[in-house]
């Protein structure tokens, strides 16, 4: 009996708190990103005898959540080379990042889509950092080799439910995807035009799980970052184009998007920001970019 009362009291306490909790408890966006705390909290060391050129200051970036992995890795590598610099990244989304860059609220805006004409006209410059190619993968036993973008969209929205409708064997298609919030998922859904409309059979929380699942189910279809596709699965051609680093780079492979650095025309970057910009666009950064699963521009 005592415990029942105890539990009830706890519930009452929780509900009371619910009534008087404050909205201000909302966490600032920057701390939501696993890479950012290290970046924002790192105190800038005042003395850096090891560094040849004493670069100091902050580099602030703001924008696309899909670029979190690549920009986080680049930021870390840059800070390692320049201990005096503090690098920050605010994962707000491409639209907000572009706006922040145009209003001068950050050094470099991050966008996972190309700038629109009117955005360019308003004095913004885009520099492509990398291309994110997403491969559509099926089981190696699957006879289907080539799908059009429209067919992929129909498959993921449930208009096509059987492999025989796209030239395969008579079997139900099993849709495998990533969890809500995944950059690969939002990238895929945006490019294919099936945002929030996918009827997934499985939502897995890592690229590896998607590949393993597609590898063991002959009727599964999934998507994964191009760099991580292995031999255990087969990447289908999209509209006749084989997904590869080359086809992503020359723009013929359809399921891809650019990762863009947005800067303001005619406004000089701070010394630290310029150094960061030069570093990420230099060939030195290519290895870091590739390791983050995207194709360097």
């Amino acid at each position, binding site marked *: 009996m005592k*415990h*029942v009362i*105890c*539990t009830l009291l*706890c*519930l009452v*306490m*929780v*509900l009371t*708190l*619910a009534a008087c*909790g*404050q*909205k201000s*408890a*909302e*966490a600032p*966006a920057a701390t*939501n*990103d*696993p890479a950012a705390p290290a970046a924002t909290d790192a105190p800038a060391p005042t003395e850096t005898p090891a560094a040849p050129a004493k670069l100091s200051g902050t580099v602030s970036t703001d924008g696309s*959540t899909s670029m*979190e992995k690549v920009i986080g890795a680049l930021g870390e590598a840059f800070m390692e080379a320049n201990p005096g610099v503090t690098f920050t990244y605010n*994962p707000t989304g491409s639209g907000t990042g572009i706006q922040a860059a145009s209003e001068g609220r950050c050094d470099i805006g991050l966008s996972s889509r190309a700038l629109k004409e009117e955005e360019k006209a308003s004095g913004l410059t885009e520099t492509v950092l990398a291309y994110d190619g997403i491969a559509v993968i099926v089981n190696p036993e699957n006879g289907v080799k080539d799908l059009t973008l429209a067919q992929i969209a129909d498959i993921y929205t449930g208009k096509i439910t059987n492999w025989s409708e796209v030239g395969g064997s008579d*079997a*139900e*298609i*099993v849709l495998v995807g990533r*969890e*809500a*919030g*995944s*950059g690969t998922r*939002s990238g895929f859904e945006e490019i294919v035009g099936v*945002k*929030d409309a996918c009827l*997934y*059979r*499985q*939502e*897995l*929380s890592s690229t590896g*799980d998607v590949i*393993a*699942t597609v590898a*063991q*189910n002959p*009727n*599964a279809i999934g998507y994964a970052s191009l760099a991580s596709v292995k031999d255990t699965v087969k990447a289908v051609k999209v509209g006749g184009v084989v997904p590869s680093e080359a086809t992503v780079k020359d723009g013929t492979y359809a399921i891809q998007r650019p990762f863009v650095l947005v800067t303001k025309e005619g406004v000089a970057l701070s010394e630290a920001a310029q150094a960061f910009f030069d570093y990420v666009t230099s060939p030195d950064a290519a290895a870091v970019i590739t390791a983050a699963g995207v194709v360097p521009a």
Partner: protein
Amino acid sequence: MKHNLTETLVHGVFLLLGLVTVGCVLLITVYLVVSGIPAIREIGLMDFLFGPTWASTAAEPKFGILPFILTSIYGTAGAIALGLPIGFLTAVYLAKMAPKAVKELIGQAVSMLAGIPSVVYGLVGMMVLVPGIRKLFHVPDGASLLAAIVVLAIMILPSIIKMSVTALEAVPREYEDASLALGATPEETWFRVSVPAAKSGIAAAVVLGVGRAIGEAMAVMMVAGNVANMPGLFRSVKFLTTAVASEMSYSSGLQRQALFSIALVLFLFIMLINAALNFFLKGEKRS
């Protein structure tokens, strides 16, 4: 005097160490409540608990966790329905029937089962059980509530077996002797005398199993498919635990806060289960 001082000092150190645990529990409770409340306030308690749709990253996000709550309840109930008969009968066999050598062997196996990390259960489930279900039942995909139930049932076996064996062995020998002397067969004695005498211990074993099953995330995440559907045996489902675990890494804003709220709901479930466990254990002491 000096002796007293040392004693007090040691006493204080032990008290401090004891308080570390209490402090952790308090810290976790306060943290969960504080970080779980804002989203519930924003979404509304009823919409949150009884909303049938979870679409956390849609253009118009929906945060209804009814599918998760139902899945967790169904999954746990299924695991108990499957694991309890096996575990209970194994326990009766081990406590009353088995020869010493066999008992030793099975006991060792059960201990090993308890020590296997949950990710290994998940991996084996993903590679063997999920394709197995797909082929056996001729469904397009095997990742389902059924797969999760089977994995959970195996995972809760050790706790059910061990607690039940302990409870059955604690039944006073005189009860059984008396029953046998009155002409009951050994089987009648075990099921009519020993088991009823050990029932609060067995109930505690079940509650412990429920606690383990409802709190498991990793193994379930690898076999259940993780789509926020209403539960169905062959449907892909998402548990309370996996809802938090799978979305946490890339979440932001209200979505992240809602995940904390789910954790809070899960925490309250576990507290209820603990209270029930204490209740049964107290009952055993009294009887």
